[in-house]
Structure formats: structure tokens, C-alpha cells
């Protein structure tokens, strides 16, 4: 299985910190799987201009192709001005319409306040659904108080991240079994 953990912002540190925690859990629990951490802050991405994702050069081509190759994406997003950051929206714009078909997406979100709890439900999930992702229903929501100096200081966050990863892998395994049964039934 091919897993990508995506930190969907070029600003701030909380999402990156949480994605690093995810990365540690995944590489420890599933050492045999192919794992890539992509922090958008580490890449110089173009804005989407409508071309096929295969035609983007440099960092943009690298990031889009890594995401397209993934079976599982753990997507981390901060909340800026009551929405996902433009950097993450650009990722969606760079990818084709049905880009997330046959991929399982688990979500973690970091925010300055609990008032933003539903932003994922109202703004991120509709985009993922449109792009045909299989979304893990429960996401991990983290706040300012869970972090101190770029570290997670609330033990429960680790438990919740572990459960998110477990749920995401389980969904993926279940999907694989169903898909295989379906394909066998087609007989071609």
C-alpha cells in the first residue's frame, strides 16, 4: 500500500506537528508500507492552470504525482479565516476531477478555536466527495491548547491520531476486499 501524509499549509506549525506524529505512528505500525510525508511548506508549487497533472514540472509535478499514486492519504489542514488554506485548495485544483477515486482519505485538522469544528464537514468533505474519495467519517480536531512550542501536549491527541490511522487503514483494507470481489465478478 502507498500512503501519503499531507500537511496542507505553507504557514503555521500545528498541522505539520500533527502530521509528524502521524508519520511516526504509521512508520512504526506499518513498517512494510510505502510512506511519504509531504509538507506543502517544503515545496514551491504553481497555481493550477488547468493542464493535466502529468504536465506540471518540478515540485508541482512531484506532489501531484505522489498524491495520484497514493492508496491512502492522511490529510492535515489548519483553519484560516473559517476555511481551508488556499494552498490546500490549490492541491485539489491541480488534480483531475475523479482524482480521489479508490483512495481512502483520513482527515486531521488544527484550529485556533473550537468554533471551527464544522469547517471540515462543511467545506473539506464536500470537495473530497466530489473528487470521489472514500472518506473516513471521524476526523481528529486539535486546538491551540493541545500544542506547546511545536509539540503535542495532550496525550489524548495521540490516542485519537492512532484511532484515525487504524480506522483509515481498516477502511482501505475493507475497500480492497470489496473491490477485488467486485472485479472478480466482472470477469474481465
Amino acid at each position, binding site marked *: 500500500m502507498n500512503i501519503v501524509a499531507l500537511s496542507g499549509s505553507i504557514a503555521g506549525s500545528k498541522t505539520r506537528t500533527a502530521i509528524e506524529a502521524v508519520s511516526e505512528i504509521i512508520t512504526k505500525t506499518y513498517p512494510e508500507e510505502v510512506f511519504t510525508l509531504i509538507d506543502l511548506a517544503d515545496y514551491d508549487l504553481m497555481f493550477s*492552470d*488547468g*493542464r*493535466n*497533472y*502529468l*504536465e506540471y514540472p518540478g515540485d508541482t509535478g512531484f506532489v501531484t504525482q505522489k498524491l*495520484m499514486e497514493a492508496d491512502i492519504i492522511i490529510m492535515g489542514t489548519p483553519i484560516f479565516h473559517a476555511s481551508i488554506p488556499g494552498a490546500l485548495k490549490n492541491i485539489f485544483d491541480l488534480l*483531475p476531477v*475523479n*482524482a480521489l*477515486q479508490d483512495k481512502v482519505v483520513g482527515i486531521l485538522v488544527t484550529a485556533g478555536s473550537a468554533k471551527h469544528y464544522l469547517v471540515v464537514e462543511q467545506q473539506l468533505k464536500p470537495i473530497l466527495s466530489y473528487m470521489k474519495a472514500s472518506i473516513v467519517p471521524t476526523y481528529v480536531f486539535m486546538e491551540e491548547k493541545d500544542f506547546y512550542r511545536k509539540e503535542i501536549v495532550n496525550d489524548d491527541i495521540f490516542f485519537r491520531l492512532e484511532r484515525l490511522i487504524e480506522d483509515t487503514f481498516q477502511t482501505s483494507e475493507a475497500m480492497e476486499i470489496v473491490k477485488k470481489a*467486485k*472485479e472478480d465478478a*466482472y*470477469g*474481465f
Partner: protein
Amino acid sequence: MENERMDPTKGLEFGLYTLGDHLPNPHTGERISAQQRIQEITELAKLAEQAGVDFFSVGESHQAYFTTQAHTVVLAAIAQATNKIKIGSSSTIISTSDPVRVYEDFATIDLISNGRAEIIAGRASRIGLFELLGYDVQDYEALFEEKFDLLLQINQQEVINWQGEFRAPLRNAQVIPRPLHGKLPIWRAVGGTPASAIKAGYAGIPMMLATLGGAASVFKRTIDAYRETAKNHGFDPTQLPVGTTGFFYVADTTQAALQQMYPHINEGMKLTNGQGFPKQLFAQAKDKRSIINVGSTQEVIEKILYQHEVFGHQRYLAQMDFGGMPFDNMAKNIEIIGTEILPAIRKYTAK
């Protein structure tokens, strides 16, 4: 429809087309050389002609996994190798070429072929060629509309005065040679949506409608929108040919046809478009209402006739040459087309 060299009383025209892709055969992982691929395309055209197929066309794509970038040169070879089959492009990306040069090329092919050349002009679904050929993809629509319009004007008059944004002005410019019968049939290639078809309707020119999958009835809406728009702009839709294109493959049974064809489409699309073709959608080809003409010979005949009943179109272009489909399989399909499919289509659609 005389301008398009079509005679609807003879029934639905049947053509074959290739995008000119150059992909490995997914069943073996092997890819033939570019030279062999180009020569096999010409061979296919010859076989198609012998089988009585009406039309054969070659596409233009400037990117990896394609080999007919110079599609007009390939068409010239086909023109020389054949005698009666109509030949054309599928499609010519007019946006990134000079319409004068395109017209010169096709008029010349028309003379080589004794009046058999046609242009299907499109906007490109893969846009890597904009950068390669020095154009800005931001001008995607403007480039196509301006250059396509110029191409149509050149077709109407030998001496032309023209000014636009993307090409040097033409002052009393003579565009020669002229085609054998004065004009070339020029079609507008259209994607699946009504919005795109309406633009062909504005200009009152023939439309070639590309389809991938889904229900035939959905594409009927696009054709209706085209005819309605043409009518509102003073053209007679009954005089405007409509063509459709789509996947085609026949085998002894539906299951065998799906089995043989699917990997070519799925793996080929992964390499050229970055995404495979959903198996679920492909499996629906078993239903008569699906636009995908893959199945047993009898089923495919029934589908084509059903589509003709729904669309009332004048030409169907079959795409079986994709994704490294072996030449022998295509030769066998062409034989079936000639002996079984064409007679059935003509029997039921000719007046």
C-alpha cells in the same frame, strides 16, 4: 450535405480513427517501434478501405506515448496508399498551428487523394503542446476560436483579407493549392457537453462529438443543443452532418470483448491521461443503452442502430486502435466490420 461529400440516402457512414498513440500492449508489456506503429496505421487504413469502411482518420498529439505529431504527413502516406476511402484528422489542433499552413497541407492531401481529405479541428484535451509550440494555454479558447474561424474563411475564399490577434494580418493573400472540388469538409470536434456543441451550432458547421462512456441518451441532449442553436442562427440542421466517436471492439462473446479491450483502455489512459478507465463504467457496456460499442458482433450492431435511432447522425467513428491493441486483433475486427457490421448498418439505415 453535398459540401461535406455525404449522401445520407446511403445510410450511416462508418469510420475508424486513431489518436496515433504509441503505447505498450498491456497483455505483454511490449511496445512496437514508432516506425512500425506508423506503418501499421497506414496498413490499417488499407484494410479499412478493402472492407468498405467509409472514413479513416488520424489524430494530432504532441506528447509522450504518441507518434503521429506530424499527422498530416501520415495522412499523405495514407492518401497515396488508398484509393477510395475518405481520410481526415481526428483531430487537428488548430489552436497551435497556422491555419494557412494547415489548409495548404490538407488541400495538398486532397489533391494527392483525388478529393478525399477532410479536417476535424479540435481544441486539444491534452495541452502540453501549447508550451512545446510556443503558445500560452491561457489563450486556449481565444486561440481556437480565432484560428478556426480563419480556417473556415480560407475554405470559403482563395484570396483573403484578415486581421486577428494571434497571427500576422493577411492582405490579398492567396491560399493555394485549392482542394479538388474547391472546398474541404471541415468539422468542429466537440467534447461531451452541450456548452461545447453550441459553439459548433453558432457557426453552422458539422460537429464531431466525442464520447467515452455513459448512456447514449445523454449525448442526445448535446446533439439537440447543437441543432437547436444552428437553427436559431439561421442554418438548416437537416443539412448539417453530425458524427459521433467512441470505443469499439468486437469478439465472439461480450465477455471476451470486454476482457480483451479493457486493459488497453485502462492502461493506455493511465499513461496518456494519468487516470485509468473505471471498470464499473466499462462493465455497463453490456447494456444496449451504453455508448461504448464493445461486445459481440450482434450486440454492437444493435447498439449502433439504436444510437442511430436516438441521434439521427450521419457518421460514426469507431476507436479500437488504442492502448497498444495488436494489429492482428484490429485486422480481425476490420474483417468483421466488412462482412457483418457494415452490411447490417447499411441495410437498416440506407434509404
